[in-house]
C-alpha cells in the first residue's frame, strides 16, 4: 500500500521518472515488499501479528472497561457487539495465526536444514493476502461499522435483514481473503517439510516444532475449505439474494453452525499445536535434556490433529441435535484429553532429572503448563453435554478458551519470541524486562480469567454488554477488569523490550545463545539469506546436540561448497493482494460491483504474468559465501 501511495504521490508531483523508479527499487521498503525470503516474510508476519495483538488487546481493554461495573453505559448495544466481534476475530485470525506463521516461516526451514521453502513466491502471496484481509477487516471501523454478530457470525443475525450495515460484509470478505492466504501458507509449509529436508533429516528426526507445524498445516489444509464454503454461502446470501440460511425460504441456520465449527474446532488446534511444539523445544533446551518420549509426542500430535475433525458438534450441544449425536461427540471430545495428557506428562518428565535454567523463555513455558492444564480441564468439563447445557454461552466458556488461547497460545508465542528473537533479528531481548513482563502478565491473566469461571456458574451469559447489580456478579467482574492492568503492563514492557532490542541495543546476538540442540542454532544470528552455506548432514534427533556430544564444533556438510540457487524477488504477490483488496472493498461497497470486478481483473492479469514469466532466480557463488563466513567468524 505504502509503495502504491508513493507511486501515486510521485505521479501527481510530476516526479515520475526512471530515476525515481530506480530509487524505489533500491529502497529497503521495496526490498521487503517484494521479498520471497522466508525469514523476511516470517518477520513481517510476526510484526503484523504484534500490531493486531495490540489492536485486539485494546478492544479487550474496552470490553473489560464496559463490564467493570453493572449498568455501565460506555459501550452499549451494537457498539459493544462490534468491539467483541472484532476482538475475537482479530485475536484469532490476525494475531495468533500470523504470529505463529511468522515463527514457522523463520524457524522451520532452518530446523530441517533447508535453504528455502518449497514455494517462496506463494509464501509471499500468502502473506500479502493475509495482510489485505486484515486491513479490510479493520477498515470496517471507519467505513460503515464493524461486524457485530460475534466471531462465529451466526446466522440469521448475520443476514441482511438483521445486520443491515456493511459490517458482516467486512467479516465475510476480509476473512475469505486472509483465509486463502492461510491455506496457501499451509500448503507451502507442508510441501517444504515433505520435500526440502536436508540429507539425514528423516521424519522421526524432525524437531517437534517442525512436526507440530506440519500437523497444524495439515489441519489448515482440511479445515480452511469449510470456512471458505461457509463464507461463500454467506456472501451469496448477503450480496446476491441466495437463501442458504434464510429459513423462510427453506434455508437453515444450523447449516452455518456446522460449516463454521467444522472449520472452527480444528482452528483452535491450529493455534495450539505450534505452541505445543514451541514448548517442547524450549523445555528440552533449558532442561538440557533430550525431549522425553519423542515418538509418543509425535504420535500424540498427529492424533490430536486427526481427532480435531471429529468433535465439532461439541460447540452445538444446545442446538438440540438429540442425545445420540451429543453423546457420540461428547466421547470423541473427551478422547482428545488423552493425547494432550501424554504431552503434558512428557514435558514434566523432560524437566525431571534435568538442569532447569529459568530464562524468560523458560518462564513462559513453565507458566504455560499449569495454565493450559486448567484450560484443558475445563474443556473436558465442557465436553459433558448435560453440564454444557449450563456452561454454554456463559462466561465459563469465556474462561475456558482464554485459558487455552492466552495461557496456551499466547504464552507459547511469548516463550518463542524470547527464545528465537536472536535468530530472527540478530539481537537479544532484555531478560529483566522479560521477567517483569512475565510476572505482570501471568498474574494479571489469572486475576482476569480465573474469576470468570464463577461469573459463568453464577449465571452470566457471554456477549452481554451489561449485567444486573445485586446478583453476585459485581465484585467478580471488577476483579476481572483489574487483572487487565497486569496484562497491559506486561504488554507495554514487551513493546519497550522490542524497541530496545531493535533500536537501542547495539550488541549482536551470538549464533547459539541458549546452548541449543537443533539445526537453527548452528548458523549465525540472523542467518545469511541462503541459510546454510553447505547443507548439513543430519545424524540423529537433536541434530546439533548430536554433533556437540561428538565433540564437534560444526555440522558435517552433506555437499561440497558450490554455487547456491536463489529465487528472485517479485512484486507480483503484492499486486495480486492489491487486486483482491480492491475487489473485496468493491464487493463490500455493493452498488454495481464494477470495482469488485476490476480488482479481480488485476488479480487475473497478475496471474497471467506470473504464469508466463520465466524466472530462473539467481546464484550466489562460493567466493561470496566464503566472504560472508569470514566476516562472521
Amino acid at each position, binding site marked *: 500500500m505504502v509503495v502504491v501511495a508513493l507511486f501515486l504521490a510521485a505521479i501527481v508531483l510530476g516526479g515520475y521518472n526512471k530515476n525515481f523508479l530506480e530509487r524505489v527499487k533500491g529502497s529497503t521498503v521495496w526490498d521487503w515488499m517484494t521479498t520471497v525470503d522466508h525469514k523476511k516474510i516470517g518477520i513481517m508476519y510476526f510484526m503484523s501479528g504484534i500490531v493486531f495483538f495490540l489492536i485486539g488487546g485494546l478492544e479487550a481493554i474496552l470490553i473489560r472497561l464496559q463490564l467493570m461495573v453493572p449498568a455501565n453505559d460506555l459501550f452499549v*448495544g*451494537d457498539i459493544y*457487539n462490534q468491539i467483541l466481534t472484532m476482538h475475537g476475530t482479530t485475536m484469532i485470525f490476525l494475531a495468533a495465526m500470523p504470529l505463529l506463521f511468522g515463527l514457522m516461516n523463520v524457524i522451520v526451514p532452518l530446523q530441517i536444514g533447508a535453504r528455502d521453502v518449497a514455494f517462496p513466491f506463494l509464501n509471499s502471496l500468502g502473506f500479502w493476502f493475509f495482510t489485505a484481509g486484515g486491513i479490510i477487516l479493520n477498515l470496517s471501523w471507519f467505513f460503515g461499522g464493524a461486524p457485530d*454478530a460475534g466471531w462465529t457470525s451466526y446466522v440469521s443475525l448475520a443476514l441482511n435483514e*438483521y445486520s443491515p450495515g456493511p459490517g458482516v460484509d467486512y467479516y465475510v470478505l476480509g476473512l475469505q481473503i486472509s483465509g486463502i492466504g492461510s491455506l496457501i501458507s499451509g500448503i507451502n509449509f507442508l510441501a517444504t517439510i515433505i520435500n526440502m529436508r536436508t540429507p539425514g533429516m528423516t521424519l522421526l528426526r524432525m524437531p517437534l516444532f517442525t512436526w507440530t507445524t506440519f500437523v497444524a498445516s495439515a489441519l489448515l489444509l482440511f479445515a480452511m475449505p469449510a470456512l471458505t464454503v461457509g463464507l461463500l454461502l454467506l456472501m451469496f446470501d448477503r450480496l446476491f439474494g441466495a437463501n442458504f440460511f434464510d*429459513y423462510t425460504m427453506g434455508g437453515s*441456520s444450523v447449516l452455518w453452525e456446522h460449516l463454521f465449527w467444522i472449520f472452527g474446532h480444528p482452528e483452535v488446534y491450529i493455534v495450539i499445536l505450534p505452541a505445543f511444539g514451541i514448548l517442547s523445544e524450549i523445555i528440552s533446551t533449558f*532442561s*538440557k*535434556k*533430550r525431549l522425553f*518420549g*519423542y515418538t*509418543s509426542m509425535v504420535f500424540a500430535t498427529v492424533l490430536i490433529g486427526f481427532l480435531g475433525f471429529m468433535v465439532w458438534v461439541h460447540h452445538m450441544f*444446545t*442446538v*438440540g441435535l*438429540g*442425545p445420540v449425536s451429543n*453423546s457420540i461427540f461428547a466421547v470423541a471430545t*473427551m*478422547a482428545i*484429553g*488423552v493425547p494432550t*495428557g*501424554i504431552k503434558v506428562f*512428557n514435558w514434566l*518428565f523432560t*524437566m*525431571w*532429572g*534435568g*538442569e*532447569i535454567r529459568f530464562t524468560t523463555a523458560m518462564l513462559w513455558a513453565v507458566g504455560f*503448563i*499449569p495454565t493450559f*492444564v*486448567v484450560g484443558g*480441564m475445563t474443556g*473436558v*468439563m465442557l465436553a*459433558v453435554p*448435560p453440564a454444557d*447445557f*449450563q456452561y*454454554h*454461552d456463559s462466561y465459563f466458556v469465556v474462561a475456558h478458551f482464554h485459558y487455552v488461547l492466552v495461557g496456551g497460545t499466547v504464552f507459547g508465542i511469548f516463550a518463542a519470541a524470547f527464545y528465537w528473537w536472536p535468530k530472527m533479528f540478530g539481537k537479544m531481548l532484555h531478560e529483566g524486562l522479560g521477567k517483569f513482563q512475565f510476572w505482570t502478565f501471568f498474574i494479571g491473566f*489469572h486475576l482476569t480469567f*480465573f474469576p470468570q469461571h*464463577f461469573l*459463568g*456458574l*453464577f*449465571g452470566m451469559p*457471554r456477549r*452481554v*454488554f*451489561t449485567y*444486573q447489580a445485586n446478583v*453476585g456478579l459485581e465484585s467478580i467482574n471488577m476483579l476481572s477488569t483489574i487483572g487487565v492492568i497486569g496484562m497491559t503492563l506486561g504488554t507495554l514492557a514487551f513493546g519497550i523490550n522490542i524497541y530496545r532490542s531493535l533500536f537501542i541495543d547495539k550488541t549482536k546476538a551470538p549464533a547459539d545463545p541458549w546452548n541449543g540442540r537443533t539445526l537453527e542454532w548452528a548458523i549465525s544470528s540472523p542467518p545469511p539469506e541462503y541459510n546454510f552455506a553447505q547443507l548439513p548432514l543430519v545424524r540423529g534427533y537433536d541434530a546439533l546436540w548430536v554433533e556437540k556430544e561428538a565433540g564437534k564444533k560444526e555440522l558435517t556438510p552433506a555437499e561440497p561448497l558450490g554455487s547456491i540457487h536463489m529465487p528472485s524477488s517479485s512484486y507480483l504477490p503484492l499486486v495480486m493482494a492489491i487486486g483482491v483488496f480492491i475487489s473485496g472493498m468493491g464487493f463490500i461497497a455493493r452498488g454495481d460491483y464494477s470495482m469488485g470486478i476490476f480488482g479481480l481483473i488485476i488479480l487475473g492479469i497478475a496471474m497471467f504474468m506470473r504464469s508466463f514469466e520465466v524466472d530462473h532466480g539467481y546464484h550466489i557463488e562460493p567466493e561470496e559465501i566464503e566472504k560472508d563466513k569470514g566476516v562472521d567468524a
Partner: protein
Amino acid sequence: MKRRNIWRGLFVFALFALVLTGCSGHESLNVLDPSGSAGEKQLDLIKLSFLIMLGVFAVVITIYIYVLIRFRKRKGVDVMPKQTHGNTKLEIIWTVIPIILLGILAVPTVTTTFDLTKIAQDEEVVNVKVTGYQYWWEFEYPELGIKTAQELHIPVGKKINFEIHGKDVLHSFWIPALGGKVDVIPGRVTNVILDANKPGDYQGKCAELCGAGHALMDFKVKAHSAEDFDKWVTQMQAPPAELTTDSEKRGEEVFQQNCLGCHAGINQSVPGPDLSKFGTRDTIAGMLKNNPENLKKWLHDPQAIKAGANMPKIDYLEEKDLDALVDYLESRK
C-alpha cells in the same frame, strides 16, 4: 516459584470448595445451587467432572512443583543430565489412567444425556410453547388457553415440557437456577424439560447473541405452589377487568389507535407481546419494575431502556393521553 505455586493450588482448591458448597452467587440464577431436578442432575455431573479434573490437576501440579524445585540449576554447579529417551512403562501409565478416568466420566455423561430428554409415562406435564423474539419472550400454555410474555409461571413439582420456537434470529432459552439451556432456532422446534422444586422467583436469560438488546433479553420465572398456580391460571383465563375510570376508558382508545397494530395479542403475525393482562406482571419488558412511572419512561423511549428494542417511541402523545394509556395498561388484570 515454589511459594506461588503452592498458594495458587490452595487458592484454586479453596475457591472451588467454597463455591461447591453454594456460598456465593445469587439463588435466583446460580448454577451451583439449583432449584430443579434437571439442574441437580447437571450439577452432579459438574461436580463429578470437576472432582476428576481436580485429581488430575493435583497429580500434575505435584510433579510440576517437585520438578521445578528439585531440578533447577544451582549456581556454580554444572552437570550434564542423562539424555533419556523415554520410559515405556510410564508412558503407558499416563495413557491408560486418563482413558479409565474418562471412561468413568463418560458413562454417567451418556446416561444423563438421554435421561434429560425423557418424561415418565404417568407423569403429569405442563406444556409451554416458548417463542423467542428480538428481544422478548412469549409463553403460551396451549392446554390452558393462556398467552403471556416476559413472565413465565410454573407449578412446583411438575415437569414442564417447553417447546421452543423462533421467528427471527437465534436465541437461547436459559434458566440457570432450574437447568441448562436450549437454543431457539427459527425454522426448527427444540425441546427442553425442566421443573422447579421450590416456589420462588428465578431469572431467565437469553444466552445466544441476538443483536443489540441481547444483554437485556431477560425474563422472569415464577414458580408457584400448585394452588397458587391454579389461582394464577384462573386469573389469566378470566376476561379482562372492566374499565372503571374515565381515564382508563380514554386509555383504551389511545391504545387502540396507537398500539393495537403490534399488541393485538390474538394475531400471530404481529411482533408485540400480548398486553391483555399487563397489570399482573411484575416487570415491564422483563427488566423494569412494573409501576406507572417506569411504564411512562418505557413508553417514552424504549430504546433508552432496552437497546435495540423494536417498539417505536411513544413520545408524541399529550401528557393526559399518556397518563390514560398508563392507567389503562395497569388496569389490565
